[in-house]
C-alpha cells in the first residue's frame, strides 16, 4: 500500500483533483478545441471511405464532432475494445478507412491481440487514435498508458505517432490517411495547446524536425514533452545554457538520418524526453540507434519510472516524475 505523502512538499499547496480527464494546457496557454475531431470532419468531406468508430468514448476522444457531422458514417461499438478493433479490421477489409478511438490503455493493454492479429498482421488500413497517452490522466494506472508506445513499437507493420499539440494534430490527420496501413496515434483531446505554430513547423510522416538549435544540449522529444522542452529552454537560457530541441513525432519508423545527424554533432549532451516509461519508448529507440551507429554522445533519459504511477493532480505528478518543464530544466542543469 502506498504511504500517504505529507500535505505539502516544499511549501506547495496540495492540489485536490485526481480526475480522469485533466487539461495539459498551462494557465493562459493558447488552445484549440477538439483539433482531431475537426480535422477528421475536414478529411471526411473529401474521403468518402473514412468512417469513425469508438468503444463508448466518442465524447472523450473528440469523435463526437465527426459523429454529429456524419452520423451514418459513425459506428458506436459499445464498451468493447476487442470488438472495436476486430470490426475495424472487417470494415477495412471492405475498403473503408476506419478511425477507431478509445483510451490508450484499452487499445494497448486490453485489445493488443486483436490489433496484432486482425489489423497489423493483415496490414489493414485502420487508424487507431487513443486519448490519455502516457501520464495525461491523474486517475491512476487504470487510465495511465505509460507503456503504449513500447507495445505498439514492437508490433510489425504499425506506424506509431506521438504529436505535440493541436497544430500538429490538424496536419497529421490527412497525413496518416494518405499512408496505406495501420497507424497508432496518441491523441490530445479537449482544449489542446497550440505551440508549434510559432516555430514554422510542418508535420511530415516519418520525419524528425529540429524546432530550435543550441550548442550545449540536444533534447530529443516527442508528444507533450516537446512542449515541455520548449518551456524548459526559457529557464535554461536564463542560466546561459543553449538547448536544441529535436521533435520526433513519428516514433516508428524512426527518422534515423536526422537523429544521427543531430546527435553526432560533438560537444552536446543528448537528452531524450518522453511521456512514457523508460522501457521501450523513444529513449531506448534512440539509444539503440546511437549504439548501432557508433555515435556515442553523453546520453540521459527523461521518462516515467518503471513503476505503477500515483493518482493525483497532473501538475503534481508531472513534477514528481520529472516531466514538468521545471523538472526538465532542473535535471538538464544538473547533468551539465
Amino acid at each position: 500500500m502506498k504511504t500517504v505523502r505529507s500535505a505539502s512538499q516544499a511549501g506547495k499547496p496540495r492540489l485536490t483533483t485526481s480526475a480522469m480527464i485533466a487539461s495539459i494546457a498551462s494557465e493562459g496557454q493558447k488552445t484549440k478545441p477538439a483539433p482531431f475531431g475537426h480535422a477528421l470532419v475536414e478529411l471526411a468531406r473529401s474521403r468518402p471511405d473514412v468512417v469513425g468508430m469508438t468503444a463508448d468514448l466518442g465524447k472523450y476522444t473528440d469523435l463526437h464532432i465527426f459523429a454529429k457531422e456524419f452520423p451514418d458514417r459513425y459506428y458506436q461499438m459499445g464498451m468493447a475494445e476487442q470488438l472495436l478493433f476486430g470490426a475495424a479490421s472487417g470494415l477495412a477489409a471492405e475498403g473503408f478507412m476506419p478511425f477507431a478511438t478509445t483510451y490508450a490503455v484499452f487499445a494497448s493493454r486490453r485489445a493488443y491481440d486483436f490489433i496484432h492479429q486482425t489489423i497489423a498482421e493483415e496490414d489493414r488500413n485502420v487508424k487507431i487514435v487513443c486519448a490519455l497517452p502516457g501520464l495525461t490522466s491523474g486517475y491512476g494506472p487504470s487510465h495511465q498508458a505509460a507503456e503504449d508506445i513500447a507495445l505498439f513499437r514492437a508490433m510489425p507493420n504499425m506506424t506509431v505517432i506521438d504529436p505535440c499539440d493541436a497544430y500538429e494534430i490538424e496536419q497529421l490527420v490527412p497525413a496518416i490517411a494518405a499512408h496505406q496501413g495501420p497507424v497508432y496515434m496518441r491523441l490530445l483531446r479537449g482544449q489542446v495547446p497550440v505551440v508549434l505554430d510559432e516555430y514554422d513547423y510542418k508535420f511530415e510522416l516519418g520525419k524528425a524536425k529540429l524546432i530550435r538549435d543550441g550548442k550545449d544540449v540536444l533534447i530529443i522529444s516527442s508528444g507533450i514533452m516537446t512542449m515541455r522542452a520548449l518551456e524548459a529552454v526559457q529557464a535554461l537560457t536564463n542560466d546561459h545554457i543553449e538547448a536544441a530541441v529535436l521533435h520526433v513525432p513519428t516514433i516508428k519508423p524512426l527518422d534515423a538520418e536526422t537523429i544521427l545527424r543531430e546527435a553526432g554533432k560533438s560537444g552536446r549532451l543528448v537528452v531524450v524526453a518522453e511521456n512514457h516509461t523508460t522501457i521501450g519508448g523513444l529513449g531506448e529507440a534512440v539509444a539503440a540507434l546511437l549504439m548501432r551507429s557508433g555515435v556515442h554522445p553523453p546520453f540521459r533519459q527523461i521518462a516515467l519510472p518503471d513503476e505503477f504511477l500515483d493518482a493525483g493532480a497532473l501538475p503534481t505528478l508531472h513534477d514528481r516524475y520529472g516531466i514538468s518543464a521545471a523538472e526538465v530544466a532542473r535535471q538538464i542543469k544538473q547533468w551539465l
Partner: protein
Amino acid sequence: METSTKTLTNAPTLADRAYNVRRNALRMGEVQGQGYIAQALDISDVLAVAYFHAMRYRPDDPSWEGRDRFLLSNGHYAIALYAALIEAGIVPEEELETYGSDESRLPMSGMASYTPGMEMSGGSLGLGLSIAVGMGLGLKRKKSDARVYTLFSDGELDEGSVWEAIQSAGHYKLDNLIGIVDVNNQQADGPSTQVMAFEPLVDKLQAFGWFVQRVDGNDLGAVVAAFDAAKSHPEPKPRMIVADTLMGKGVPFLEQREKNHFIRVEQHEWQLALAALESGRQA
C-alpha cells in the same frame, strides 16, 4: 459456387463433395504426419454445403467483390478449409502435398496473408465474429448483397469477445451474417461443456437477437435446410447455425478413438483411414 446453369447430369453430389473434402484432409494429414484431422472430418459436411450449395464465389477470382466471405475463426481448422478450397478449385490440388511445409501457402494455422480464399488470420481464438461484424457493416455501407459466413468452435464461446460480437451483431441487425458454431464438445482441456458450461446455447443466442437453428452437422440434408433457412429468413437478424458434430466422422476407428483435442494418428493409420473412408462411402 457461381454456377446457375448446371447441366451435367453426373455432377458431383454434396455427398461426393463431403467425401472429397475428407479425403483431401486425410491426404494432407498424411503429408504432415499430424493435423487437426478429427475436427476436419467433423466439419466436412458443413463445408461441403457452404462451398457447394450455399455460397457465391468465383474459383478463379478468390477476391471477387461480389463473393460471399467465409471467415475461419478457428484457425486450427485450416486443414479442413484447405480441403474445401482445393475441392472448390480455389487452391490447386497439387499444393496439398505442401501442407504445413516450409514455403507452403498452406500453413497449419490459417492466415489471410498465405492462402487464396482465406479471409482472416486465425489461430488466436475468438477473433472471427468481430471481424465479421465489421465486414457485415461494410457490405451494408456498400449496398452489397454478399454475406459473411463465420465458422467458429464451441470452445471459442468461452471468449468474452465472441459475446461482444454476438451482442453487436444483434444490435446492428446484421442479417448478412451467418455464423456456424461447431459443437463437437471438445476443446484443449477436455469436453467443452465441462471446461465451461455454454448451454443452453440456442436460448442464449436467441436472447441476443439472433435467428438460431440447431442441427446435426453431419446430416447433409439437415445442414442444407439450415443454410437455406438462414439465407431466406425474413427477420432482420443475424443468423446462427449450431452444428452438433462427431469428431472423426466418416472414419469409424477415429470416431471411436478416445476423444481428445488433438487426436494422434500413427503414420501407418493414414492409409487405413483413407480406406475406411472409402469403404464407408460404398456402404
